[in-house]
């Protein structure tokens, strides 16, 4: 793992690295180098299997973290390529040309986080949500509790009790 990290560091501007296990590490690199690194890992370092692409919303810092997780089916190691993109007008270069499965991940990120991947096939089609008009729901500023309270009507039989008080009233009603 150390050898390949050194190799990547000699070619790309790695700003942060985290070796989680002897078969898993995460590297942070600038946005404009991310797809290049992913392609390099796939074509020259044997990381031919793409595991996942997902986003983390760091709303306090004003950016999204994108993580591309790649797997090497020969030595069974994994590398997570992290890159930070601006939260406002979030856009990232598409990588659908590298793996067919990539377009589904990008389509989901467009819908759930509002991150655009221009040129990615079917990226604007609904994936999980249908007719969604609110802000992308996986962003941190989308409040699920508030949404549920405003959207769904209260149903009878849903009164909540404080568990300690309720048990006390049931088990020891005379105390």
């Amino acid at each position: 793992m150390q050898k390949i990290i050194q190799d990547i560091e000699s070619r790309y501007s790695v700003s942060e690295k985290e070796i989680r296990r002897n078969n898993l590490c995460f590297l942070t690199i600038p946005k404009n180098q991310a797809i290049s690194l992913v392609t390099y890992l796939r074509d020259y370092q044997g990381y031919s299997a793409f595991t996942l692409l997902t986003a983390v919303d760091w709303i306090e810092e004003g950016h999204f973290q994108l993580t591309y997780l790649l797997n090497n089916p020969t030595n069974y190691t994994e590398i997570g390529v992290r890159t930070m993109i601006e939260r406002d007008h979030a856009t990232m270069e598409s990588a659908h040309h590298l793996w067919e499965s990539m377009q589904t991940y990008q389509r989901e990120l467009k819908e759930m986080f509002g991150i655009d991947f221009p040129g990615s096939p079917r990226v604007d089609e609904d994936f999980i949500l249908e007719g969604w008009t609110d802000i992308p729901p996986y962003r941190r500023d989308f409040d699920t509790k508030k949404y549920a309270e405003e959207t769904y009507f209260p149903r009878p039989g849903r009164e909540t009790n404080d568990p300690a008080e309720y048990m006390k009233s049931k088990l020891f009603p005379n105390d």
Partner: protein
Amino acid sequence: MDIRKIFQQYSDRTSYPEIGEDGKPIIDLSSHKYLKMWQGPQHPGVTGNMSLELTVCGDEIVESKTHVGYLHRGFEKLMERRKFIQCFPTCIRMCVAEPDPNEYLLARCVEELSGIEVPEMAQWLRTLVLEMARLQVLLRGVPGQGGTFALGLGYQWGNYIRDLILDRFEELTGGRVYHMYILPGGVRGLLPDGFKKRMEENLKLADEFVKSIDDLMYSNSVFKQRAKGLAVIPKEYIDKYGVYGPSARAAGVMRDVRKTNPYLKYAELDFEPYTTTESDVYARSRVRWYDLQTTIDLIRQIMAKMPEKGEIKAPTPNVLHWKIPKGETYVKCESSRGEYGMYMVTDGSDMPRRVNLKGPSYTHANMLLEKLLINANIADTAGIMVSLATCPPEIER
């Protein structure tokens, strides 16, 4: 018009529809050559709540689109506002048929990020529970493939033995479908008295079932005719489309996390996952049939090798005030469908910053299924879908 002329005109059906310059099929519904039809979300041939938007020419599928979202409750988002221990009831629902890998992965993420070592006895019990989960899925899943081609007997039969395995789950964990037996630090309890004896009785029945299903399904000429040569996954699709587990092994590519990245006690167990090269529906079903035998054998090995007593849980902080240091990790295990992974990011608070579940259905049911269904017959849709063992809740999470 002479019907023969029409037939001759359209006899080469693989050329329809024509492909446009953008690489997409040109489908003009007003030409009356094509018909849109939906398979699902309520359909016995669909594995769970999802649907396929099929465009057919006669009885041949020319285009397929997967629609998910019927079960979306935003589990990953809901977990972001729950304490780590409160995430368990949410997380297990991300795959109803086999919930135990979910709880194992969540517990493992928490343990890895907070540096907790799991006692050996708990590791053996976790291995046992994961294999029991695989067994109950395969008891239904293997004959279920026959069910998609109208061979329903095996499915009913397998369900009976599955119910007996659920009895064992009930006595071990208290629950039949959802167990929450694996928690951060270890497991909730030791094996009850007489558990191994009762399990062995169930395994003997499962052994008989394995032999019988071989006669019932794999020697059945109708099943063979329908499943052989159907929906072949070429080897080069494995990485391109993200094919995992039994579906990859049926194409001759060894993908089994238990062997490639051994976790828990798998390195101490003697087993060899079956691989073959035909890569059609029959081969994928056959791989699962061998997996069923392997799982039965593994449960016997685990029960023989595990210690009788021992620590089952490492000390953990008060779960209601448990803050986990900032970090991120990805852990994985082998579910009955293939590699099952969880990516977790923490920010030092008492709730996860982000949890992302990666199940094999995510790629199998979307890009791969859409590709495999082209030029297939409508009647084979269910068979192809079940051969990929799709589980919609893990797609929409």
